[in-house]
C-alpha cells in the first residue's frame, strides 16, 4: 500500500475531518470571512473573537470540503485559540512552509510536533490549496472581516 497515501490520510487527519473541533457558528464574532476554492467548490467560513489584547479569544468554522481541508481547518482552530495575531501569523507562515515541504524555521518545537501530521502533504502539491484554505480565510477575516461593533462583542 502506498506509503505517502497512508501518511496523508493518517488516523489523526481522518479523525479531525470526521469530528472537526470548533465546528459551528460563533454568534459574538468580531471578525469573519468566507473562503472558497473555485476549483472544487469547497467553502469554509471562519469566525473569531479578537479580544482587547489582540488575542484570538474564540474561533469556529463551518463549511464543507475534503478530508484535508476539514482536518486542516479543525487543527487550525485548535491551535490558534489563545494566540496573539503575531503568533498566529508566525504559525501560519510555518504551516504553509511545512505543507509545501519547505524549511519552517519559525515554528516552535511544540507546534511542529502538532503539525507534523500535515507534513505528508508536501508529496501532494495538488492538495496544498485544500490545506491552506482555512488559514487564508482566517487571515482574510483579520484583514478585511471586522464586524461592525454594534454586532460584535469586544474591540
Amino acid at each position, binding site marked *: *500500500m*502506498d506509503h*505517502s*497515501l*497512508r501518511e*496523508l*490520510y493518517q488516523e489523526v487527519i*481522518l479523525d479531525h475531518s470526521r469530528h472537526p473541533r470548533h465546528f459551528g457558528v460563533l454568534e459574538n464574532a468580531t471578525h469573519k470571512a468566507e473562503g472558497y476554492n473555485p*476549483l*472544487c*467548490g*469547497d*467553502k469554509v467560513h471562519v469566525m473569531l473573537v479578537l479580544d482587547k489584547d489582540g488575542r484570538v479569544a474564540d474561533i469556529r468554522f463551518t463549511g*464543507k*470540503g*475534503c*478530508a*484535508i481541508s476539514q482536518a486542516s481547518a479543525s487543527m487550525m482552530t485548535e491551535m490558534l485559540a489563545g494566540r496573539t495575531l503575531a503568533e498566529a501569523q508566525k504559525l501560519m507562515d510555518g504551516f504553509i512552509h511545512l505543507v509545501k515541504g519547505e524549511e519552517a524555521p519559525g515554528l516552535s518545537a511544540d507546534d511542529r510536533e502538532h503539525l507534523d501530521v500535515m507534513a505528508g502533504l508536501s508529496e*501532494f502539491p*495538488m*492538495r496544498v490549496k*485544500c490545506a491552506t484554505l482555512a488559514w487564508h480565510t482566517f487571515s482574510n477575516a483579520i484583514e478585511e472581516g471586522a464586524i461592525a461593533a454594534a454586532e460584535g462583542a469586544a474591540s
Partner: protein
Amino acid sequence: MTAQVKIVPGFDAAKARADFPILSRQVHGKPLVYLDSGASAQKPRVVLDAMNEFARTNYANVHRGVHYLSGAATDAYEAARRTVQKFVNAAREDEIVFTKGGTEAINLVSYSFLAPAIHPGDEIVLSVMEHHSNIVPWHFLRERQGAVLRWVDVRDDGSLDIEALDAAITPKTKLIAITHMSNVLGTVTPLAEIVARAHAKGVPVLADGAQGAVHEIVDVQALDIDFYALTGHKLYGPTGIGALYAKRKHLRAMRPFNGGGEMIREVTRDIVTYADPPARFEAGTPPIIEAVGLAAAMDYLSGFDRAAVRAHEHDLYAYARQAVGELNWVRVIGDAPGKGAILSFEAEGMHAHDVATILDREGVAVRAGHHCAQVLMERFGVASTTRASFGLYNNRSDVDTLLAGLTKAREILGS
C-alpha cells in the same frame, strides 16, 4: 488534411490505443489510466505529426501574401475549414468560423448575434445541466442588458425535460442555448426535437457541442440547427482551436466580435467596413497550425466506424456503471437513456478530491469537482462529484483499475 478518409468497419480499440503516445507512460510508478477525456482528450500521433510537419515545411501566415508558403498555408487552413464543414455536414464552408475553443464559439454568438438584439426582459432558455461556458455568456446579457435566464430542469435520471423546455419558450424568448451532451451526466439531448419545437415558435437554437461533437455524429443540416459550437482539444485535437457552425443567414447579419486584421473590407480614419463571413469573425492571425491539427483529428476520428467507437465507449461505461451500481456506498448521478460514456458519482463519506487523490496514486486520472457545472451540482444537492469519462482509447482493464482504486479509497478513508 485533405486526405480521403477511408472508414474501417468495427473498431479495434487496442490498435487505436497504440496511436496515443502518452498512454504508454507511467504515473506514480503505475501505468497511466486516463479517464479524464471529458476535460480534455489525449492526442494521437497523427495529429501531433500533422502539426509538426506543417510547421516544418509549409508554415506562413494565411490570406496575406502572394508567396508560395503563404499560399500553401492558406490552402491548408481553408482545407481544414472544409474538413470541419464535412465533419458537421454543413451546407457551405463559409458557415464555419474558427475560434479559439468551445467557449469562444459560444461567446461569439452571445456578442455578435444576441447582444445587439437583446432588450430588457428578453429571455434566454437554458438547461440546468449547462457547462459554465454555456451559462456565463448569457449571464453577461442579464447583467449588462437586462436579459432574463429561464432555466429548464432535468429529471432525476438526468434526462432533459423536453416538455418543460417547450413550456419555457415564450414570445420573449430570443434563444435556446443547450448542450448536446452533458459533461457531467453524459445526457445526450434530443437536438432535432428541440430545434423543431423552437423553430415552431420562431426561436433559434444554439447547441454546445463541446462533448457532443466527440461522441455523436453531427449533421447540422438534418438538425436544422442555427448554431453548433465545438472544440478541438476534446476531439483528440490541439488546444487553442474550436469552431462555430452558424447558418449563413445568421452570420451575414451578425456584427463583428473582435476587431483587427483580416476581418475588414476597408479601414479609414473615419469609417470601417467589414469582410463577409467567415472572415468577419476571424480577426487577427488565426490558430493556423491548430486548424491543421484539428483537421487531422477529425480525419482521424472519421476514419473509424463511429457507431462502433460509440458502442465501444458505451460498453466501458455500462461495465463500470454495473460494477459501481453494486457498491451501496456509491451514488451515481446521471442515468438518462441513451447517455454517453461519462460516469459521475458521489461516494459516501468520501470527498471527491480525496477519492481522486487516491485514484491518482494508482495511475488513474479522474476529475473531481463541480466540472464547471455549479448549477447542476446545486440541482443534485452535491458540492462536487468524481467523474470518469471515457475516450476511444480506454479499455476494460482501465475500468478494473478504477474499481480497484475505489475499493482502496474506501479502505483508506474508511466509511
